[in-house]
């Protein structure tokens, strides 16, 4: 405890508030939202002292945002269940028909004749061949495909297969698959580390090896999933989109390979360096020292030139909006890295200001911007209809640049950096409502009239989750930036939950959607539907188990600090929430193993027996024997 002038004595901070009191406080706002009744009414009926939390806009926004994905998941579940029940109903009807047929067998000849006459009368209509004549239908050009003649029920509804598209250069395909394959490796590696680090909150003495200690592994986890998984997957999908919407081949395949090699090298070296205790300074996401991060930077520069040349030589007049986002993201990522690593303005508070700028621009201008560009391509492609509004896309693009660039220092609200700079960041965070709402509207309106496609697609659910968290996760960021909510949530695990809702809920889900959309097109091999479903649901449910307890616990912890309780009590209080986080994290982690299995299934060439070819071969062989015999 600290200094106190006698005057302050009466408001000393050690008045114990039992933990359940915090629960009481939260119960009221939660009830208010769950009951969906008018909130002010509830606030007044609650005790006046404890209901002040409801008044905070940040809390209200967050609770509402939390409910959105849950409702969406329930809705999706209902849609799927409904389809299943329909099929079961059909089977019952078929059984009923069989029984009816058996009954018909028992009838005598007259009864049958009467029935048949009746049937003839009822069924008589023109035969529709009055004009076409007696010719059987024929599909001489083979235009009809995938006619399903199987009538038996299956538990897993057959989803639409990827349409085989002509004109994908096999060499480009190989490059893309390498990007996505290595990205999958880093996802599994990075989240294995994350899972282990999460376990350490529950069992801190699980090991005592310097290379595996928490402080060293944490940046290994974040950097591996940032630069390894997300960045490589984005670039892989980008190498498909950029030439495709330009209607031209990629300018240089070779530079694509160089980017792949350089980025992978930087993550391998960075991981080893961090585990060995070589750390640039501890600033989040710039823990790799500059010679290692430089490899990543060179990879980006090479790709930027490649993309720019491709766009310059495009065969379309307009530059499709995807290429705005993607090329801009690569340019901005280079700017961000330069600002973060140039040493001239990194002393004292300079370092803090740059750190705030860097860590948020890295997320918003690299991952978010690039991924949005991907969604503007893959979502319309999967829905087979154009994006709802080009202008909304333009508005979202420019407002994202304008507001997002300002918000970095909201990580240091109430710190020693100038108050005015903090205010700018908070205003910018509020401004983010414009790009987020216009982007979400654009995506959702693109779904309009095509919602029925969701039930028959294994990619669209990933996009839906991505869109939902784009909306809720981003606005949660806005809610956290207000001074009143920052007071409670800053420094707690609430931030950890937020970063997972966004980097995982938005970025990873969109990337999965894109990967499942194109890899089967490239390899002509579908993943097993059931394991795609397992991947989706485990990742989604795992994320909710991960984030919701952390948000709840984080809020409680912030309130305990505000009440001046001893710090260690807030550690003890968090224990069950950390356990839930580890459980949710385990579900997420297993889902990644399933995803890796799906990737293997899509990429690894399957040895299948082509009956037709072998039959013809055999015939030929027999002919030969016959010829030789005669």
């Amino acid at each position, binding site marked *: *405890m600290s*200094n*106190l002038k006698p005057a302050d*004595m*009466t*408001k*000393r901070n*050690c*008045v*114990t508030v039992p933990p359940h009191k915090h629960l009481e406080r939260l119960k009221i706002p939660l009830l208010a939202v769950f009951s969906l009744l008018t909130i002010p009414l509830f606030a007044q009926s609650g005790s006046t002292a404890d209901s002040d939390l409801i008044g905070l806009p940040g809390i209200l926004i967050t609770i509402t945002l939390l409910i959105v994905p849950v409702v969406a998941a329930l809705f999706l579940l209902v849609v799927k269940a409904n389809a299943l029940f329909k099929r079961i109903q059909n089977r019952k009807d078929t059984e009923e028909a069989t029984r009816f047929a058996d009954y018909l067998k028992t009838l005598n000849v007259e009864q049958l004749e009467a029935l048949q006459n009746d049937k003839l009368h009822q069924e008589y209509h023109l035969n529709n061949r009055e004009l076409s004549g007696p010719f059987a239908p024929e599909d001489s050009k083979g235009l009809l495909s995938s006619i399903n003649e199987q009538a038996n029920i299956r538990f897993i509804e057959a989803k639409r297969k990827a349409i085989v598209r002509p004109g994908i250069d096999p060499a480009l395909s190989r490059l893309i698959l390498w990007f996505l394959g290595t990205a999958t490796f880093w996802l599994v590696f990075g989240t294995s580390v994350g899972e282990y680090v999460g376990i*350490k909150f529950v069992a*801190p003495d699980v090991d*005592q090896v*310097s290379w595996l*200690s*928490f*402080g*060293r592994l*944490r940046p290994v986890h974040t950097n591996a999933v940032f630069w390894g998984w997300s960045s490589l997957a984005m670039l892989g999908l980008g190498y498909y989109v950029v030439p495709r919407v330009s209607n031209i081949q990629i300018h240089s395949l070779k530079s694509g390979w160089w980017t792949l090699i350089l980025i992978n090298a930087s993550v391998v070296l960075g991981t080893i360096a961090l585990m060995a*205790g070589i*750390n640039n300074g501890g600033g989040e996401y710039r823990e790799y*020292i500059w010679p290692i991060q430089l490899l990543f930077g060179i990879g980006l520069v090479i790709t930027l030139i490649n993309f720019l040349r491709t766009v310059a030589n495009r065969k379309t007049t*307009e530059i499709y909006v995807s290429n*705005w986002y993607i090329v*801009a993201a690569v340019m901005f990522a280079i*700017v*961000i890295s330069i600002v973060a*690593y140039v*040493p001239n*303005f*990194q*002393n*004292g*508070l*300079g*370092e*803090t*200001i*740059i*750190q705030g*700028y860097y860590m948020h621009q890295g997320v918003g201008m690299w991952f978010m911007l690039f991924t949005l560009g991907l969604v503007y391509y893959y979502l319309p492609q999967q829905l087979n209809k154009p994006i709802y509004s080009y202008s909304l896309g333009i508005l979202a*693009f420019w407002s994202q*640049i*304008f507001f997002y660039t*300002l918000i*970095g*220092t909201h*990580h240091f609200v109430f*710190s*020693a*950096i*100038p108050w005015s700079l903090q205010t700018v960041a908070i205003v910018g965070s509020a401004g983010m409502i414009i790009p987020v709402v216009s982007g979400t509207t654009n995506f959702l309106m693109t779904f309009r009239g095509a919602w029925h496609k969701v039930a028959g697609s294994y990619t669209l659910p990933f996009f839906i989750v991505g869109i939902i968290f784009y909306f809720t996760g981003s606005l949660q960021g806005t809610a956290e930036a207000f001074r009143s909510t920052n007071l409670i949530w*800053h*420094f707690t695990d609430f931030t950890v939950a937020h970063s997972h809702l966004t980097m995982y809920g938005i970025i990873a889900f969109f990337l999965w959607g894109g990967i499942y959309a194109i890899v089967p097109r490239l390899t002509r091999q579908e993943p097993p539907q059931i394991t795609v479903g397992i991947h989706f649901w485990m990742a989604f449910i795992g994320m909710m188990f991960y984030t919701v307890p952390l948000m709840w616990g984080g809020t409680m912890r912030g309130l305990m*600090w*505000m009440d*001046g309780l*001893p*710090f*260690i009590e807030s550690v003890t209080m968090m224990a069950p929430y950390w356990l839930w986080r580890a459980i949710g994290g385990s579900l997420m982690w297993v889902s990644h193993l399933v995803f890796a299995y799906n990737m293997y299934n899509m990429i690894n060439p399957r040895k299948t027996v082509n009956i037709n070819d072998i039959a013809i071969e055999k015939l030929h062989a027999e002919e030969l024997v016959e010829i030789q015999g005669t």
Partner: protein
Amino acid sequence: MMDFFNNYKKLYLSALGLFVVLTILVAVMPAINNQNNNSPLPNEEPLSDAALAGKALYVANGCVACHTQQVRNLEMDNVWGKRPSIAADYASEHRTDLWRNTATLMGTERTGPDLTDVGNRQPSAEWNLLHLYQPRAVVAASVMPAYPWLFEEKTNLDEGDVEISVPDEFRKGVKGKIVATQDALNLVAYLQSLKQVELPGAMPVPEFLYKREQKPDAVAGGGEDMGLDGAALYAANCQSCHQASGEGLKGAFPPLKGSAIVTDDNPEVLIDIVMNGYDARPEFGSMPAIGTNMNLSAAEVAAIINHERSSWGNKARKVPVEEVQKIMDFLKQTAKK
């Protein structure tokens, strides 16, 4: 207009231009400005070589992942320092070497306590070493990693070796003597160096915002401990060494349970130790001047010692605040002489 959207050079250059201009305005210029226009406080002592080496270890092991070093200008952060941190507190931070950037110390997560002023709050080297070796040996509920690789096992002590006495249950089969390496000593030196610097007299002290509302019952209840919770104050200031059980740790921190000094009818020695520290018994570590370091008020000291005098089977009389105040005034005078 359509030409703008269809001309890739114009499109990308304007997007890049907007981003770069905003970047310069909101990040680069404020950074340069703050770097150039702030200098360290006059009372600030430069880090010793050992502390500098310790700081490098602090960065290498990612301590910033859980420990902040910033006292925000919020009443709730008052427990971490006497005043809010200001720009000058960070002004002496500069690039580490050719390979490494300036250390990020402010942090964004407070999974563990803030360390801005830990050199005042917990200066005991014995405690810090044992805590590094196995945090749960001193703080049972801690989730901090243990750093046994900063220590070595020896059968015989050499000159200058610092041995730490680890309770048996945490020795994990280590039979020899557990000795701190130079790394461990450096890290502790760094932690001990983390002290909030006094502001020079002329400088206005920034205020803590969002003051807590006065609790009416605390004011009305007043009484001998002014509504303060002695157990909570004990937990925050004393418990990490003397433990919740009051039994201390054998060979490191003495028990308060059944202690003659704690239960003495005359609380003068007890208050002296709380305020000014104690290092008279070689079998235990030295106690820092916790009361003076943390600027504890008479009411707070009274709450703490009354908690100690009435817990774990201790049954001494409660000392009223006025008596504590008198003794503290007396101690201050004798210290001045």
